[in-house]
């Protein structure tokens, strides 16, 4: 049964824009056309200069893990079936702090990672952080394997 479960599909129109921006092995985020600030989560206007001209651009995917957490209590059955679910926060070299699904091979705070937009099991865009020991041209595939992991055998 649980294999049919999906992660949450609800997004705002800005979150949906991230789905359109998915390109393998890259990170696309909103970048202000006026002041060049890279921002996340997606906004209607630039957090720095309030410009409304915010195209999604390819940005530097490198970042550093700030903290990670194994979630043992998830409200969505999709994650409950796969718990503990690993997520964390990553400070990107290009500026923003992102929450992301995290590769279990990634260590604690300080670990260098690639952050990518990938499609999750519901084909919605999410961010995933992969250890930099993985070549960048393999990163999306690794990330997708990671977050599409099979549910635990029911006990």
């Amino acid at each position, binding site marked *: 049964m649980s294999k049919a479960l999906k*992660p*949450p599909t*609800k*997004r*705002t129109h*800005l*979150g949906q824009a*991230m789905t359109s921006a998915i390109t393998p092995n890259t990170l696309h985020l909103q970048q202000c056309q006026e002041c060049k600030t890279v921002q*996340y*989560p*997606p906004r209607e206007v630039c957090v720095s200069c309030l410009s409304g001209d915010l195209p999604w651009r390819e940005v530097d995917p490198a970042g550093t893990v*700030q*903290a*990670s*957490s*194994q*979630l*043992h*209590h*998830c*409200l*969505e059955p*999709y*994650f409950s079936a796969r718990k503990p*679910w690993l*997520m*964390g*926060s990553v*400070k990107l070299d290009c500026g923003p*702090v*992102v*929450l*992301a*699904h995290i590769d279990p091979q990634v260590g*604690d*705070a300080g670990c260098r990672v690639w952050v990518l937009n990938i499609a*999750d099991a519901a084909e*919605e865009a*999410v961010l995933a952080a992969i250890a930099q020991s993985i070549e960048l041209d393999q990163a999306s595939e690794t990330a997708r394997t990671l977050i599409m992991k099979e549910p635990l055998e029911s006990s």
Partner: protein
Amino acid sequence: MKRKPQSYEGVALIAPYTLPYSRVSERGTSWFVGRTLAEMLSQCGLEKSAVDGLAVSSFTLAPDSVITLTEHLGLQPRWLGQIPLGGASGVVAMQRAARAVQAGDAEVIACIGADTANTGGFGDLVSNFSNFTIDASYPYGSAGPNAAFSLINRYYMDNFGATREDFGRIAVSQRYNANHYSDALFHSKKLDMAGYLAAPTIAGDIHLFDCVMPCAGADGFIVTTIDRARELKVPWVEILSCGEQHNAYSEDPVQYRGGWDMFRDELYNAANLGPDDMQFLQTYDDYPVICMLQMEGLGFCPQGEAPAFVRKTPLTFDGGGLPHNTSGGQLSMGQAGSAGGFLGMSEALRQLNHCANENQIDSVEVGLVSGYGMVNYDRGLCSSAAIMRRGDQ
């Protein structure tokens, strides 16, 4: 140079009330607001028609709002406020109401934080909390606030050397306080350090007794003039100073401080008092680590030294140290949504009126209430605090 806030002279806080919390309720939020208002009025002998202002905080009021409540409750106010600041709401509602009373815009303002708790309501709330939540936090394991706070907790442990026992000192002493406050949901359940440490894991280093239990309930108080309080012959509390700061230190990669240190000097200066003069501290305790950020931000100890502070300072109401969250806080009373942002206020007023429960602090005259609220993405955005003194009655 920032202008100095004016004093809160002439303002009285009266009629604190906590509507006993319940784990779940099928009642609507208006019931909690209305019954709390009724109890507050009965406590101070005011008629409902005397209420000319209403400030409300709630997560479960929609599609109603403070204006639809006026018709529901049969009120004809000339001043309304709706304060959507979560755990900072109680102090902020008080501040807004106090200014309106001082300016003569209203004279009797009821301030109420209330939420119901229907089955499944908590999941609906956290999955739709805000646009950032929908796009950028809920899809990452859908753990609600536990996820963001487990990251804050981990970062704090990594950088400031806090241990689980340090967080446990806060939770265990609050449970002791709740064991002396009959309306706490966990009033009759004891918790010791061994029990705290043995709790199941929820998220990262957050375990069961670091988390609040969502529930239904309400807290409130009335803001009026000292003259009116005297006429009513009820005890009152005065505001010595008050401050708030929002979206502070947004450049910090993980939250390890709120906005309190940005206004604490003027807070203490206006009161002509310092942290050592405070006879209690009521913090917003959604998680023990957040109590630590408030202890540091409000100058009870330096930044990063709350673990050492809680090791050496008794936090129980009768421990002779710093009485902290003397009714048990949300960790032991339950988190009745927005009422969680008001319970520190109602408890502070009971303490200063010398009408607390078995948990009354001896000879208490002055204390501090602080608020923290609204995790939109990865951190709480609101910080508030007020210093209050027992009225000169």
